[in-house]
């Protein structure tokens, strides 16, 4: 799945030291680098950098994911937005996908499964 041009990933999470962040970074490494910013830093980062995928950790931000998706899509209409969560619920899934998220993904620890899932979203 290695590509010649690396993809740029951004994770928005206020839990900078979360173990899962490191798992995600390692899993996506073959596709491209992952930057991690807090919700407060996100807008400034997105104004300055091109990204292919923005990952929002729904459990580690204070705003409603729907609102964050709206803001991200305004700044980067071409970027895919994926909402990740440790406790998925169908109502949130419906809300974020209808708001424009490319997917709603339960956090997993298997790096291969993460790579497969996010790689597929990039291919869509």
């Amino acid at each position, binding site marked *: 799945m290695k590509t010649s041009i690396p993809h740029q990933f951004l994770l928005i999470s206020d839990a900078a030291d979360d173990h899962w962040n490191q798992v995600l970074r390692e899993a996506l490494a073959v596709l491209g680098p992952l930057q991690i910013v807090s919700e407060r830093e996100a807008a400034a980062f997105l104004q300055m950098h091109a990204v292919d995928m923005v990952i929002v950790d729904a459990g580690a931000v204070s705003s409603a994911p729907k609102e964050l998706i709206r803001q991200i899509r305004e700044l980067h209409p071409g970027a895919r937005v994926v909402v990740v969560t440790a406790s998925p619920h169908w109502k949130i899934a419906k809300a974020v*996908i209808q708001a424009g998220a490319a997917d709603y993904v339960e956090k997993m620890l298997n790096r291969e499964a993460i790579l497969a899932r996010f790689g597929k979203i990039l291919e869509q």
Partner: protein
Amino acid sequence: MSQTLKRRGEKMARGTILFADNDADFLNVRSEFLEDEGYTVLKASGPEEARKVLDQQRVQLAIFDIRLTDDSEGDISGLELAQEPAYRAIPKIMLTGFPDVDTVRTALRKRHVLDELPPAVDYIPKKDGPEALIQAVGDAFVHAVRLNWDLQIQWDPRERLSFLYLANLQHPDLQDDVLLQRAGELEDLFRKLFYGHRQIRIGRLLWHDDGRFCLTLAAQTPEGAIDPRILVCGEPERLAQELNRMAELAPETVEGTKLADTTETVHFGAVTYMLPDADMETIQSFREFFEGGGERRLKTVLSHLLSEMLLAWHKRGQKVEERGLMALYRQCAGLGGDGLSQTDVESRINALIQVVQAMSGVHVERRDGLMSLFFPGESPLTCPDPVTAVYRPLERYRTGVACTVSPGRLTAENMLVDAGRRAWLTDFARANQTPQWWDYVCLEAIIRFDLSHAPDLLAWLDFENRLVEPSGLHTRLSLQDITSDLRTSVNLIEQIRRHAGGRVGTDTLPYYAGLLAWVVGAMAGHKPAALYTHAERMRAAHMLLAAVKLSCRLGEAFSPSLPGGQLHMQDGHTVWMGDSRIDDLGVQELALLKCLIERAGQVVSRQTIVEEVFGEEYVADDKAQESRINTLVRRLRLKIEPNPDRARYILTLKGIGYRLDVDGKPSG
């Protein structure tokens, strides 16, 4: 109920919904709520019934229960139905008694970022009650169905068009009740396409071809501005293909035809194009413009077409095709690939010959690879059979053919001319890489066969003699013996050839070969009719005459010194003769060749052929089997033998069978 819902209900009085649920009580009760809101509800109790409604009725929104078949835990047949590509244009709402994350994701995510709609636009738990469903339906009509109910649709009274007429053009075989529904669906397509407009005025039917039609229209914006457009409508898949070709191949010229909007319903797709600064009221087809006469004005338009419009496409890039020139031309002319089989071509041209022979004194003979024309008062004209010739390789162009991007097959109808004498192209469904001579060939063929008129066969004979004389595309065409009716045509053809010569070289051989493929394709496209006018018979005779003349002119090129090259098969299906690939082999022809190649140099009995190729039991002295073998061998020889009448590869061993010589050594 809120005022908003009441207003929406009134507004959506014309909305038609398919509601599919296998729980009859639930279906009936919820349908009543929707009907009370003013919607028309068509009910279905399972996937098959739902498909039938979608295929036959005018449906604007669909509601599917996820468990649509048997309510078991694994039943997601409603969700699967929502994902079927055939119904991608219908917005859908999923209903479920068991909401979960996975089905939400499957239903609401777009499968591709470019998809217009996801499989479903909303996802509602059944327990949320009728209000939630009514709200979702109202939202779906506003945000996803998006029909402009307020659009005023006007028709030009001179044209006598209607949605019913247009639906019938695309689907002529439908029963009346289904056709009425299609007409309604076509109206929906227009209301969807012109969602932001106040009014449209549908003008003229410019052309219709193979299930597609093209109209002129003017759309008025809410601010009162007029957008002149042309609209091409056809089956959604065909239109999607056209759009893909446009995206991949079309030039980004400032002046050319520009894609404006596109949309689709279940059975129709539509594309609108803008013709910047063209006056749609006075725009004419090339045929109408040609019939207006005046050589100078015709030359001006041709010059614009050649130097601006076509050149912009041709500049999109060249590539060299591995296949031979005649195989490529056959594809362009509808004689190969997905087009007509050689057997169909033969039978259609034989039917056309019958039409020609109904003219007094005209006689046509096809025998031993030759075609002879007997015209009253003229000595017979005998040449290599042009139909057979089209299926044989052209010696100097067996491979490595220069191709360029073509906007598609040009016709007298799909090229338009505006009041400023600018030419416009309108049909891009067949845009593709074609041999670099093809567009020029089509232009000449339109003038030569479609638009020119001659008083009699003798005039056509003189015309054709002059046109096949030159050995270079730059050579001036003689007007000797040409009747006044045809002089303008000769001069326009000379203009096309000179331009072509400047772009692709002056060799007439590939150019004439293209004309031969075009005219054989046009003859094969002839649909038998009960009655023929004298003009139709004359046109058929002219095409036959031209085909024979071109075949004579090309005869030597088709059968020169015999080509070398070992016959071999790659991957069990690609056949090569030396460096040249043999295309267009039918399934049985390929099976026969495989059978022979596997036993190259050995005797292959007729019994082996029957058993291996036909998969049947051999019956000695069965005349039908004998005849089928002979026909199949003959067809294969036509495609691989340099001279099918003097076979070098597939040798007949009388009374025994056949033997393949892969080297094709000349005998004696």
